[in-house]
Structures are given as structure tokens and as C-alpha cells.
């Protein structure tokens, strides 16, 4: 994790409707493959608002673990509900002190015009990556899996 270089303080991302949006970069993280992921003020603000509204404020402090989740995920898949190459989902089990248990946390990273940026963080049902009720496990494209992790731990 590092501060953005002066040339990276603002990035232009493309939203779902193809429009360009300028966003301020809070920090830059290298993910498990050493690729840059930009964490923007807008992405963090949305996620905090969302967690607050869902009465899951205990997860807000886990935003500080973003560099760790992105650099050391259990498994990363391409979102099967999105166009190929559009969205990566990084999964990692984290201990939530407030609940005294581990939860599967999903970090959403969008890839637009070659720029990867943090989009959202939420709890995912344990043991299942997104989309398993809709597509066959063999159709889920795994981008990365940690050496100690087995695919069946995530329903694959």
C-alpha cells in the first residue's frame, strides 16, 4: 500500500453507462499478482454508507484490511454476472471480533480500460462464491486461488 504518485492522485474511470468519471485516489494497493488497484475516496465512502445502512458497521474497520485482502486472498474469481474481464471478486475469511466468528468477505474490483479500482466490500454467504445457483461450478473462472485453499471450500 502506498500513497498515489502525483500523476495518480486522480483517475478517470468509466461507469456502467460508459461515462467517464474523475475520482480522487486515497491509496494504491498491489494485489496478489502485483497489479495496481486504486482505492478511491468515492469507493470507500460508498462502502461505508452501505455497511452503515445494513447495520454492519463492524465491517467498516475491515476496510483497513483492504491491502491484505487484495494481496493475500483465499480465492479470486471473475464475476459470472458481468461481462468477461469486467469485475474481479477477491474473497478472504476474516475474524470479526464484534461477532466472535469468521466471515467470508468479498471485495469487488472493477477493471475498466485497464485500470483496476476498488468498488465495494460486503459479506458473502460462507462456502459459496457468487453465481453458483445460476451457473455450473465449472463455468466460474478462477483468477487466483491460494495454495492452501481447495476449490470445494468455495463450492467449486
Amino acid at each position: 500500500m502506498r500513497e498515489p504518485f502525483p500523476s495518480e492522485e486522480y483517475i478517470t474511470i468509466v461507469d456502467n453507462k460508459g461515462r467517464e468519471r474523475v475520482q480522487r485516489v486515497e491509496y494504491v494497493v498491489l494485489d496478489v499478482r502485483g497489479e495496481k488497484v486504486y482505492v478511491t475516496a468515492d469507493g470507500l465512502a460508498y462502502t461505508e454508507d452501505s455497511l452503515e445502512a445494513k447495520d454492519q458497521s463492524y465491517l467498516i474497520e475491515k476496510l483497513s484490511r483492504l491491502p491484505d485482502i487484495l494481496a493475500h486472498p483465499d480465492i479470486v474469481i471473475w464475476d459470472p454476472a458481468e461481462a468477461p474481464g469486467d469485475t474481479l471478486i477477491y474473497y478472504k475469511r476474516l475474524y470479526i471480533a464484534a461477532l466472535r466468528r469468521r466471515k467470508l468477505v468479498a471485495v469487488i474490483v472493477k477493471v475498466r480500460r485497464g485500470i483496476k479500482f476498488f468498488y465495494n466490500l460486503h459479506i458473502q454467504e460462507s462456502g459459496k462464491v457468487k453465481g453458483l445457483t445460476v451457473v455450473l461450478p465449472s463455468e466460474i473462472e478462477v483468477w487466483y486461488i491460494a495454495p492452501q485453499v481447495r476449490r470445494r471450500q468455495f463450492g467449486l
Partner: protein
Amino acid sequence: MVEAIASDPDMPRSKTGLDTPGYRSLWVADLMVDYDPRTGRPYAFMSSSFEKTYPLVIWALKFHIADELFDVPQAGLTAVPLHEAFSWAYAHFILEDQMPILQPESPSEPRSLTRQVLRYAAAAA
């Protein structure tokens, strides 16, 4: 992406926060739901490509979660099913209120926001 959270104003917020099972996929690819452990009812809904999958998401909500009514204060809607709330979200956030002002279809037939938004979206596609 559209994320909607339903809350019951009569239910106090948990001191430690809600220990929910987490988002799980439903039977359409782009709709995930999380459940309130106190009621066992869905309370958080996420559609990541709502601008593209709106008809499918609406279909899923209409057939699987149609037995509960919600107020949407931001939209001035009261006691509407979830698919109507999502149709308002589509008209407001995706179509950015470019849809013509909605009028009752007939005095005897209550206005269906979903029907009008689907019709508009199909015509604009």
C-alpha cells in the same frame, strides 16, 4: 450497481451489528440477497449490472419476493412490492428521470410502475 436495504423503523438497531449470513445468489445471475437474522426475511438486495439486467431482476423479485410491502420515502411510495421499488430505482438512477411523468392508466386500474418502466425500457432499447 444498485443496492437496496430495507429496514423496519420499529426494530431497534443491534448493539453489535447484524450477524447476517451474507449475500447469496438467487436464481438469476445478477441478484443477491442477504437476510435479517432477527426476522429471517430478506433485507439487503444487490444487483451489480442493474442497467442491463433490470427485466430479469424484476421478474425474480416479482415471483420470489412479492409477499411483503415496502415504503420508499425518497420516491414518495408507500406499501409497494419490491419490484415496484426497484422499478422506481431504475427510472430514477438508470434512466435518470428521463421517463415521461407517470399517469394512472385508468381510474379503475392502479398504476403499475413496473409495467410502465418495462414498456419504456423496451421501447428505448
